[in-house]
C-alpha cells in the first residue's frame, strides 16, 4: 500500500458519533411551514377536481397552477412535472403540496382533501408496455455467421427485481425565499443538479438560487435525482407563501414514492464453437416506471455491460427502457450494471455446466485481456487483473474443494458455492465528463496558510471529505487541520459535477491533486491564493460515439471477483450465507479502512439484492414500505464477509485510484443465485431468490 492509503479517522467521525452533525430534520422549525405532498391514489387517472377542506389561516394548498416557473423538474429530460397537471402516472405522483405552521394540522388537512379521478387503464408490465422511452444498441463482429457456424446455441431469459436504497436518512428539504433569493438545503448527492432544476421551476435566475447540502445520511444513488423533485416542490411552496418550507418524508413515503433500482428482463442467445462462446445476442428491457428521470443513463450503462467481463468476438446488444405506471426507477449503486451482469454471469455458468466444465474455468477462459476490444469496440488500455483476483478468491474460499464436495447432495440442508466476475466502468459514460460535466475545482489558500477545498461533491457517508482532505494535505505537505472542507453550497463552490458514477475520487480527486501540486509550486506565504483546475480528457481514449455506442465507454474499469457460499434448508427455503469473499480492484485506495468498509457494505447490499431485498409492487402499489417489511440484511445474516483489495494503479487517477463506490454491488447477486442453484440442483434465472422461491422450485 502507498502512504496515502494508510487509514485515518474520518473527518466527520466525531460530529456523527457525538450527534452533533445537523441533518435537515434537525433544523429548528420555528417560523417554518411544514409541507406534505398530496399524492395520486391511482396508478393512472385524470384528476377531475380537487376539493379542499376549509383552510385555516396560514395554511395553503399549492398545485401546478401556482408554479412561478416551468412545471418541470429538469433531470436528464424534462418530463417529470413538479405537480401533475391532469394525468397522474403512478400511485404517489405528486398533485400538490399543503403547507402550514402545525405539522398535525397539515396532516389532518391533507387527509381531508378529496380528489375526484377519472380512472384510466395503467400498464404494469414493462415487457408489454407500448411506450419505449429509450432504445440503445450496438453490434460488433458478425453474429449471423457465428450462429450459423455454432456447435451449440443456448437461449435463456433472466429477470432482476426492484431494489430500494434504504439509506438511513429519508429525503428532506428546506426552502427559503427572501429578497428575490432562493435558498434550498437538504439531503442530496448533487447540489448543481438541484440548482438547475430549482431555477427552472421557480423561474429565478441561476444566480438567485443557492443550493446547499446538509449532512447526508446515505444515498446509494437514491439522492441523485429525487432531491431535485423535492427541492422544486419545497421551493415553489416557499416562493408562493414567502415563508420557509420544510418537507421531510416519512419512511413509508420515502420507500413508496422515491426512486428504486430498475427491474429488468434480459434475453440472451449464445453461440458456442469448440467449447467457447463465439457470439451473444442480448435483448434487455428495463422497467423505467412513469417518468424518464435517470433512465437513459442507467440503460446506457446496462447496455454497455453486455457480454460482461468477457471477450465475445461477435456481440449484438439491444436495450429498451419502457414506461410503466409505477414509481420512477432511478439511480442505485451499480446503475444499470447489476441487471446485465446478473444475466451474463448466469448465462456463462449455465453454458459451462452444460458443457461439463466448471464455471470458474470457463469464465477464466473467456476473460478480456489487456489490448482486447471492449463490448463497444473500444480497448482495454490497462491490465485486466481478473485471473489473479479470481484465483485469490478461489484460494480464500476453498472453491474447488467445496465445489466437488457439494455435488449431488441429499438431505435437508444443502450447500453451494459460486463465483462471479464483474467490472464497473469508472466515471461518466463515454464523453460525459468532457462534454457534459466539465468539472471545475478550486483550492483557496488564505493568508494564514489554510487551504480550503471548493468542490460540489458531497460526503454522503462514503468518506469523500476525508479522501479529498487526504489528497490535498498529502500533496501540499500540510497536516489535516490546515485543510478545510465544508458542506458544499452552490454560492461558494464551482461545479465539479455530481457525486455519482464512482467518479468523485478518480476524477475530482485527481483535479484536486493537480490543484494542490500547483498551489505548492506557486505558494506565497501570507497571501490569499486561488487555484482552479478543469477537467482534461485522457488522450489515450478512443472517442465514444453515443449514437452508435462505439469507442471507449470508460477510460478504465474497476474489477471484482466475488464468491458466495450458501446453505439452503430444503424444508423451509431458508438461505443461509455461510461466507462471502470479494477481491476488488479499485486502484489505489485513498484510505484503506474506508475502502474496505465500502466494499464490505456494497457486498452485503448485493447479497441482499440476491436473496432478500424485494419491493413487491402489486398493481403499482408498494406495500412493503417499512423497515419491518422491506428486509435488508442484518449483521446476523451475514456474519463474515472477507474482502481484499487488489491494486492495479490507474495512471490518470490520484495516486493510481479509480472508481470504488458502486463496484461491490455488482457481483454478489449472480454468485448468490448460482450458489443456491448449485445447492438445490435446480437451474435458476432470477434475482432476488427468496425462501418462497426455493420451496416453489423444490416441491
Amino acid at each position, binding site marked *: 500500500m502507498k502512504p496515502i492509503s494508510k487509514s485515518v479517522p474520518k473527518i466527520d467521525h466525531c460530529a456523527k458519533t457525538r450527534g452533533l452533525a445537523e441533518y435537515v430534520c434537525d433544523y429548528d422549525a420555528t417560523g417554518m411551514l411544514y409541507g406534505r405532498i398530496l399524492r395520486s391514489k391511482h396508478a393512472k387517472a385524470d384528476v377531475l377536481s380537487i376539493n379542499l377542506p376549509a383552510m385555516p389561516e396560514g395554511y395553503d394548498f399549492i398545485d401546478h397552477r401556482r408554479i412561478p416557473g416551468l412545471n418541470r423538474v429538469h433531470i436528464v429530460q424534462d418530463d417529470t412535472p413538479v405537480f401533475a397537471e391532469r394525468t397522474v402516472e403512478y400511485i404517489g405522483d405528486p398533485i400538490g403540496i399543503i403547507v402550514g405552521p402545525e405539522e398535525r394540522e397539515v396532516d389532518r388537512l391533507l387527509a381531508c382533501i378529496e380528489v375526484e379521478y377519472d380512472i384510466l387503464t395503467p400498464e404494469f408490465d414493462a415487457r408489454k408496455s407500448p411506450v419505449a422511452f429509450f432504445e440503445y444498441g450496438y453490434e460488433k463482429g458478425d453474429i449471423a455467421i457465428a450462429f450459423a457456424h455454432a456447435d451449440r446455441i443456448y437461449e435463456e431469459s433472466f429477470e432482476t427485481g426492484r431494489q430500494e436504497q434504504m439509506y438511513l436518512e429519508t429525503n428532506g428539504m428546506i426552502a427559503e425565499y427572501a429578497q428575490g433569493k432562493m435558498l434550498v438545503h437538504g439531503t442530496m448527492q448533487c447540489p448543481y443538479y438541484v440548482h438547475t432544476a430549482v431555477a427552472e421551476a421557480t423561474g429565478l435566475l441561476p444566480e438567485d438560487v443557492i443550493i446547499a447540502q446538509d449532512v447526508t445520511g446515505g444515498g446509494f444513488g437514491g439522492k441523485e435525482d429525487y432531491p431535485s423533485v423535492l427541492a422544486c416542490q419545497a421551493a415553489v411552496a416557499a416562493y408562493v407563501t414567502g415563508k420557509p418550507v420544510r418537507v421531510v418524508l416519512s419512511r413509508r413515503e420515502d420507500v413508496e414514492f422515491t426512486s428504486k433500482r430498475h427491474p429488468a428482463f434480459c434475453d440472451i442467445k449464445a453461440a458456442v464453437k469448440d467449447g467457447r462462446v463465439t457470439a451473444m445476442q442480448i435483448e434487455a428491457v428495463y422497467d423505467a416506471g412513469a417518468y424518464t428521470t435517470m433512465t437513459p443513463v442507467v440503460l446506457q450503462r446496462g447496455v454497455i455491460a453486455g457480454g460482461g467481463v468477457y471477450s465475445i468476438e461477435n456481440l449484438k446488444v439491444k436495450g429498451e427502457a419502457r414506461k410503466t405506471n409505477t414509481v420512477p426507477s432511478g439511480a442505485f449503486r451499480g446503475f444499470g450494471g447489476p441487471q446485465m451482469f446478473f444475466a451474463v454471469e448466469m448465462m456463462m455458468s449455465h453454458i459451462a455446466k452444460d458443457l461439463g466444465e466448471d464455471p470458474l474455468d470457463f469464465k477464466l477462459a473467456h476473460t478480456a485481456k489487456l489490448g482486447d476490444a471492449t463490448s463497444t469496440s473500444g480497448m482495454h488500455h490497462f491490465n485486466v487483473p481478473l485471473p489473479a483476483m479470481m484465483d485469490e478468491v478461489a484460494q480464500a474460499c476453498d472453491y474447488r474443494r467445496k465445489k466437488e464436495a457439494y455435488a449431488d447432495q441429499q438431505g435437508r440442508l444443502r450447500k453451494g458455492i459460486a463465483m462471479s466476475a464483474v467490472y464497473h466502468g469508472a466515471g461518466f459514460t463515454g464523453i460525459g465528463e468532457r462534454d457534459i460535466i466539465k468539472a471545475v475545482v478550486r483550492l483557496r489558500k488564505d493568508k494564514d496558510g489554510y487551504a480550503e477545498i471548493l468542490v460540489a461533491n458531497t460526503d454522503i457517508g462514503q468518506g469523500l471529505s476525508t479522501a479529498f482532505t487526504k489528497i490535498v494535505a498529502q500533496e501540499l505537505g500540510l497536516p489535516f487541520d490546515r485543510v478545510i472542507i465544508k458542506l458544499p453550497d452552490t454560492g461558494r463552490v464551482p461545479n465539479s459535477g455530481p457525486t455519482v458514477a464512482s467518479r468523485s475520487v478518480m476524477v475530482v480527486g485527481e483535479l484536486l491533486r493537480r490543484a494542490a501540486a500547483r498551489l505548492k509550486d506557486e505558494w506565497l506565504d501570507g497571501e490569499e491564493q486561488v487555484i482552479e483546475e478543469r477537467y482534461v480528457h485522457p488522450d489515450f481514449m478512443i472517442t465514444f460515439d453515443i449514437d452508435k455506442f462505439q469507442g471507449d465507454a470508460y477510460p478504465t474499469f474497476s474489477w471484482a471477483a466475488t464468491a458466495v457460499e450458501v446453505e439452503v434448508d430444503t*424444508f*423451509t427455503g431458508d438461505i443461509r450465507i455461510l461466507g462471502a469473499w470479494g477481491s476488488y480492484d479499485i486502484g489505489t485506495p485513498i484510505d484503506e479502512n474506508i475502502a474496505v468498509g465500502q466494499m464490505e457494505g456494497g457486498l452485503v447490499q448485493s447479497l441482499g439484492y440476491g436473496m432478500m431485498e424485494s419491493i413487491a409492487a402489486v398493481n403499482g402499489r408498494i406495500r*412493503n414500505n417499512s423497515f*419491518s417489511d422491506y*428486509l435488508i440484511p*442484518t449483521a446476523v445474516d451475514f456474519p463474515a464477509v472477507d474482502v481484499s483489495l487488489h491494486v492495479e494503479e490507474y495512471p490518470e487517477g490520484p495516486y493510481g485510484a479509480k472508481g470504488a463506490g458502486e463496484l461491490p454491488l455488482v457481483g454478489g447477486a449472480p454468485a448468490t443465485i448460482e450458489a443456491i442453484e448449485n445447492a438445490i440442483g435446480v437451474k435458476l434465472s432470477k434475482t432476488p431468490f427468496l*425462501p418462497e422461491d426455493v*420451496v*416453489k422450485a423444490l*416441491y
Partner: protein
Amino acid sequence: MVGSERLPDAQSNQPASGSVTAGSLDEALKLRKENPGLIPYAGGTDLMIEGRADAAYLFLGKVPEMKRIAQDDEFIRFGAACTFSQLICSAHTPGILRDACLQIAAPAIRNMGSIGGNIGNGSPKADSALIFMATNSMLRLVSADSERILPIRKFYLGRKKLDLAPDELIVEVLMPIHGIDNYYYKKVGGRRALAISRVAFAGIMDVRDGIICNCAAAFGSIGDVIVCLDEIDRMLVGKSVEEASALKEAYIDAYNMAIVPVAGRVSADYRKQVCMNLLRDFLESNHI
C-alpha cells in the same frame, strides 16, 4: 418503588395525558377497573410503533408480582411483565421457550418486550405465545374482584379477539414443568434477526417407556390465531412409537386437511408446504 404517578405530559406527538404507572398488582388492578380504556403494557415495543396520539397507557413494568419467575412442583410461573431477556437468563426457563425467546427481534427489543404483551397483543405471529400454546400452558387472569386460570389454548377466540374481561390483566403464565423436554422448534422469518415469523412450528413429543404420553403440534403465523389441534394430536397419544408410525400418514393427512393458511408477506402455498415439511420432520426426528 414508584407509586401511581402521572407520566410526563403531552407534547404534540406524545400520548394523551392520563397514562399511569402502577407500583403494585393491587394498584394495577384498581387502575384497570377504574379506567378500562387504558392500554396495559410492560415493554411497549409493539405499541411504540403505532405511536397513537389519542391513547392512554397503564404501565405494568414496575409491578413486582408481574416481574417474578418462580417454580412449584407442577409449573414454572412467569410474571407477565417479564422480558424476553429475563426469560433467556433464567435457570427456570425450559429449552423450548429459551430457543424461541432467543429468536425474537434483537437484543434491544428482547430487553424491553414482555411475554404478557406478546400474548395479549393477540398476534398469530407471537413467538413466545406459540410455545405456551404447544406446551398447553395456563394464564392466570386477575381482576380487582376475581381470578381465574385459563388454558392459553382457550384464550384466543379469533383474530385479535381475547377471552379477557375489560378489568382483567394477564398476571402470570403457568408453564408445565414435566413432559416438555423433547421438543421441536422452528421459526421461519425473512432474515436471522429482527424478523417477524412467516411460519413458526413447535412440537412436543413426550414418550415414556416407548408410549407416547403427549403429542402436541402448534403452528404460528398461518391464520388469525395460532393453530393447535388437540383432536388430531390425540391420534398418537397412548400409542407406542411403532403404532404411531403406522398412523403417521393418517396423522399428517389430517393436518394436511386442517391447515389452511392465509396469504400475507408470503403465499398461502408456501406456508402450507413449510408446515407440512416441518410436521413430517417433527415425527421423523422422533423415529415415527
